[in-house]
C-alpha cells in the first residue's frame, strides 16, 4: 500500500497552539500510555532503569529559545521560549509512505491518517529516514516502526463515550493547546482556528504538505504601549494624597 491516495475524503489532523503550549509533556505520556495498551505492539523501553534508557514515543516536546534581533536603538529584546510538540503530521505527500518497500506504511483514503501495518513491517527504517520531522521511531523490542496513529482506535471507537472520541493527547492536554478535527472541511473548528490564527506548516520546503498545523505564538513582550499612558499623580503636593482621599471619599 505504498501508493498515496490521490485525495482523501477527510483530512483528520491536529492543530497545535504554540502560543499556549507550556511544555508539560502530558500529551507525550498520555500517548505512550494509550498506545502501549492499544494499536499494535506495546511501546517498549530498552534499558528502562539502566544507564541509557531508550523507549519508543510517538509524540515528543522540544523546547526552543528565540533571540529576537536587536531593536533600532541597539538594545537586545529579551529572549523568548517556545515548546514544540511533535508527532506525525499525517502529510498529504507523505514520503514515508512511498519509500516503504513492503506496503506496511500507508495513508488511509477515508481520513488521511498515515499508519503502519505492523505485521507487514520488516523494520528497515527507511520510512523514518524519509520523514523530515522525526515522527517515526522503531520499537526497541518489537523491531517494527511505530508512529502516531492519530488514535485511530479512539476517534471512531463506539466503546468510548462520544466526548472521548478524540486522540489521547488532545484529551489530556491541560492547557488546551491541542485541537483535533477535519482540516479538509473549511468550516470545522480546527480549520477556522487555522484561518484565524495563521496556522502554519513545519518545513514547508520539504514538500510534504503536512495536514497538522501549528498556530504561531502571538507577539510577546510588546514594546511600551503608547495607548496606555503612565498614571498621573492625584496631586503634586507632598501632603496632597490625604486631601485627595478626603475628596474622593466624599464623592463615593
Amino acid at each position, binding site marked *: 500500500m505504498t501508493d498515496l491516495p490521490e485525495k482523501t475524503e477527510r483530512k483528520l489532523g491536529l492543530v497545535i497552539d504554540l502560543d*499556549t503550549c507550556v*511544555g508539560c509533556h*502530558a500529551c507525550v505520556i498520555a500517548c505512550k500510555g494509550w498506545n502501549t495498551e*492499544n494499536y499494535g505492539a506495546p511501546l517498549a523501553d530498552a534499558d528502562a*532503569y539502566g544507564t541509557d534508557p531508550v523507549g519508543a514515543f510517538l509524540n515528543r516536546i522540544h523546547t526552543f529559545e528565540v533571540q529576537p534581533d536587536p531593536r533600532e536603538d541597539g538594545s537586545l529584546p529579551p*529572549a523568548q521560549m517556545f515548546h514544540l510538540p511533535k508527532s506525525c503530521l499525517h502529510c498529504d505527500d507523505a514520503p514515508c509512505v512511498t519509500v516503504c518497500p513492503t506496503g506496511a506504511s500507508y495513508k488511509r483514503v477515508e481520513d488521511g491518517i498515515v499508519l503502519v501495518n505492523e505485521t507487514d513491517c520488516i523494520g528497515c527504517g527507511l520510512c523514518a529516514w524519509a520523514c523530515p520531522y522525526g515522527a517515526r521511531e522503531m520499537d526497541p523490542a518489537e523491531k517494527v516502526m511505530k508512529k502516531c496513529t492519530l488514535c485511530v482506535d479512539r476517534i471512531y471507537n*463506539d466503546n468510548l463515550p462520544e466526548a472521548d472520541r478524540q486522540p489521547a493527547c488532545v484529551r489530556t492536554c491541560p492547557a488546551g493547546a491541542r485541537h483535533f478535527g477535519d482540516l479538509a472541511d473549511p468550516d470545522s473548528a480546527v480549520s477556522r482556528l487555522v484561518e484565524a490564527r495563521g496556522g502554519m506548516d513545519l518545513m514547508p520546503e520539504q514538500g510534504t504538505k503536512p495536514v497538522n498545523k501549528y498556530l504561531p505564538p502571538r*507577539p510577546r513582550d510588546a514594546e511600551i504601549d503608547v495607548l*496606555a499612558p503612565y498614571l498621573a499623580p492625584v496631586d503634586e503636593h507632598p501632603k496632597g494624597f490625604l486631601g485627595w482621599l478626603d475628596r474622593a471619599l466624599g464623592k463615593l
Partner: protein
Amino acid sequence: MIAPDRTQPHVDTAPKVSDEIRKTTCYMCACRCGIDVHMKRGADGKLQVAYIEGNRDHPVNRGVLCAKGSAGIMQHLSPARLRAPLKRTGPRGSGQFEEISWEEAMETARGWLAPLREQAPEKLAFFTGRDQSQSFTSWWAQAFGTPNYAAHGGFCSVNMAAAGIYTMGGAFWEFGSPDWERTKLFMLFGVAEDHDSNPIKMGLGKLKARGAKVIGVNPIRTGYNAVSDEWVGITPGTDGLFILSLIHCLLKAGRIDLSYLARFTNAPVLVNGDPKSPDHGLLLTTDDGVHMVIDRRTGKPAPFDGEGVEPDLAGSLRRAGVSHRSVMQHIAERYLSDDYAPETTERLTGIPANTTRRIAADLARTAFDEAITLDRPWTDFRGHRHETMTGRPVSFHAMRGISAHSNGFQTCRALHLLQILLGAVETPGGMRFKPPYPKPATAHPKPHCRVTPGKPLDGPHLGFVQGPDDLCLTEDGSPARIDKAFSWENPMSAHGMMHMVISNAHAGDPYPIDTLFLYMANMAWNSSMNTAEVQRMLSDTDAGGDYVIPRIIVSDAYSSEMVAYADLVLPDTTYLERHDCISLLDRPISEPEAAADAIRWPVVEPERPGHAGVRGFQSTLLDLGHRLKLPGMTAADGSPVYSDYADYIQTHERRAGVGPLAGWRVGEAEGESTPATAGSGLRHGRGAPNGAQLDSYIRNGGFWTGHIPEEAAFYKPWNRAYQDWAVAIGLYDKPLPYVFSLWCEPLRRFQLAAEGQGRRQPPDHLRARIRATLDPLPIWYPPLQDGHADPVEFPLHALTQRPMAMYHSWGSQNAWLRQIHGMNPLYVPTGVWEANGFRTGDWARVTSQHGEITVPVAHMAALNPNTVWTWNAIGKRKGAWALDPEAPEAKKGFLLNHLIHELLPPKGDGLRWSNSDPVTGQAAWFDLRVKIEKVAAPRQTYPDTGTQRSPVPPAPQTVRRTTGAKE
C-alpha cells in the same frame, strides 16, 4: 497514482478499551486530580491496571491529566517498590537490610515508642512529608503526646500560606485561585509548576483562548513564563520591592478601590500612635474589642461594623493625649515615599522604571476602566443588600518563587496588599477563595506544646499565634519544640520547621530525642538542605559508638535514599492500593464554586508475592496507636477503635457531625443550603457517620462536591449567604465575617516585645531583627543571605525549578518520565556563559559560601543575567530507586541542595542564624548565592555521596508492558 483497487489493511477502530473503570485520585503530586483507572482482566482472571486517564467529572482536572498522572501506572509498577518491613543489618546509609514480618516490625516500633510515651513523649519526633492525611497524622501525634510533630510546610511554602491567612484569611493554591473565567490581566509571580498544576494550566489555556494578557514575573523564562505575553525577568529576592513600587504608582495616582478598602479591610481602623504606650502600633478597639474607625457621617469614632457606619479611610483621632491615625494614612505615608519610586527600585530589581510604571498603568486600567459587573444581588454581613457584584478583572498568583526567600512572608503580604488595594480579592475577575477558606487567622487554633508523660498533648501542634503569649516556649524561654517552631527565631512558623529537625536532633538543641519517625519525606536527600552533611548527621555516632540520633523509623513505599538511613522501614502501598482521604479538615480539593473532598481506594490489592507485603501507612499507624493504647484508638475493652484507615475515614468524628468526609453522612437532608440527597436518609455536610460512605464516594467517582449558591460565590468573607452556607456544611460552627488585615497586629505584638513591652521578652540578639522584619505593614528587606555571603564574591543567584514531568525524587523510578529528565545541567545566562568561555558539553564548579559542586552546564538566554538554575531533585544517590548505580541520574544529575545550608554562614557575631524567613521559618532555598568557574569534564557530578545497597532486586532490562488481556 492511486490504484483503483486499492485495498487497505483492516484496522480495528473500535477495540474494547477496558473491562472496568475504577475512579480514584491521583497521587503523583498534591494537586489531586481525579483519575479513571482502566482495568483489564489478565490471563489469570485478575483485573490489572491498564491505562490511566483524567476523570472528566472531577472538579480539579475536568478530564485532563499531566505527564506524571498518566505515568502513574509506571509508579505503581515500579521495580523500586518495597515488599516487606525492613530491619537494618548494616551501618546506616549502607542500604543493608533484612526483611522481617509485620508482627516483628510493629512490635519493634511499639517497644521503642511505649517507654517514650510513658516517660518523655517529646523524645519522639514525628514528621511527615507531602502526605495528604495531616489531620489524621497530627491527631495521632497529639494522642501520643509529643509536641514534635509537623508536616513539610515549613520547607515548602509556609510563607505563602501564613501571609495569606494572616492578611486575608486565605492564600493561593488550594486556598484560592484566580477567577479564570473572568480575569483580563493575570500576573504570575515565581511559579514553575505549583501544586495546582493542572488547574493553572487549564486556567492559562482559558486566558489564552480569550486572548487575555498574562505577565510572568520570574528570573527564568520557562513553562508558564514562556507562554506569558510579557516576561519580567526580575532579580531573585526583589519581588517585594517591585510590588511595593507598583503600589507606590497606584497610590500616587489614586488608582485604588476606596469603597472596598473602607468596607472590607482594616484600612480605616485607627492605629495607636503613642511610642510610649504598651499598645503603640496596635489597633484602637471598643471596650468589647471591636476595631474603631472614624465615621464619616459624624466625624466621630465608631465601631467599624456599627450600623450605617461610613468608615473614613483618612481618619485620625486624638484621645487621652494619644494621636491615632488610620491604617490607610500609614500606608500612604510609607509607600508614597520615594524609596518605592520605580526609579529607585530599578537598580535592585533589575526592572526598568518604565516597565514598572507601564504595568501599574495596565493594572489600574484593567481593574477600574474595564471593571465588570455581575447582576447578582447579595447581602453583606452588615445586613446591607447590594444589587450587583463589581469585578476587578485583574488577578495574581504566586508560589515559591516569592515564598522560598527569607523575605518571603513580607513579600507575599505585599502582593496581597496590592491585590486588596485594587479590590481584586473575592470579587469577580480577581482571586477567589476555595472552601474551607476564607477563614481568618483568629479562627485557626493556636499552637500547643504542653507535654504530660503518658497523656495526649494539650491541643493541636500547629496553628496561628496572635502574639508572644502564644509561642511554644518552655519555662526558661527556650524552644519547646525540636524544630524550634514558634520560638523567637521564627515566631509565626505556622507549619513547623521540618528542615531543622535533623540538625537540631543531631546537635541535641534544644534537647536530644530518641526516635525520629519520618513518613513520606526524603530527608536524606532532596528535601534537606546540606544533603551530604545531613547524611553524616543521620549516621553520626557518639563516643560510645551509638548513633547520635538513636532510632529512625521511616515509612516509604519505595527504595529511596531515606530508606537507607532507617533502622526500621514500614513499607507503604502505592497510591492505587490503599484508602486515603482528601478531607475538608485538612487540604481538600475544593474549587471557588464548591466545597469538595475525595478519596483513594484500593483499585488493586497490594500484592508482593513471596514477601511479607505492604500496608497502607495510615492503617499501620492506627495499629501502632492501638498497640500503644493511645486514646481514641483503643476502646475501653482494649480492642482497636478502628479496624483500619477505611474504618477511621467513615466513622471518626472530629466535632459533632463533622468527620473526615463531608459527603453522604447520615441524617435528614434539610434546607436549600446543603446539597440534598433527597429521601435517602443521607445528607451532605454535617451528619452522623455512615458505614457505607466510601461506597457512595466510589459510586460518585471518588469525590464529593457541594456547590456554593450563586449569591454566595463572591465576597465570601463578608457575604451572609456564604457564611450561612459554610455553617450548614460544617466549615464553621457560627458565621465568621471579618475584614482583611492590611495592618497585621500579631506582627506588631512581636515588635512591641522586641521594643521591651510585655511579659515575654525575646533574647537580646534577636530584638533588632524582630523589630526590622516583623513589621505590621509589608516591607522589603534584602534576602538575609546577602548580609552573610559577599555579593561580590558570590555574584550569582542559584535557583531550582520543578520540572512539569517529574515529581521530586520519586519520579526517577518511572521508566517513562526518567527518559524526559534523566540528568540536569545547570543553566547559565548568556553573559556568564560567554565570560567563562563555556561551550556545549562543558562542566563547571559551582561554589557557595558553604560548599561546592561540579556539574554540567548549558546555555540559556531567556534568563535573568545574574541567575543560574537547574531542575529540582533529578540527581539520585547511586543504588537508590532500583536504578543502575551508573544511571545518568547519579552520574550527570545533581542536587543544588549541597550548596544550601540550613544555617546562614557565620558573620562574626558568634551566632549561626537559621537560613529561614525570620517570621515563619520558611526555608530560604532561593536565597542562595554562588560563583561559577569552568573545569575539565570529570567522570561524574560531585559530591559523590557513595553507593547504597538496594533492598529490592535489580530492575528489568526492557519494559514492554502489556496487560494479560493484550498478550
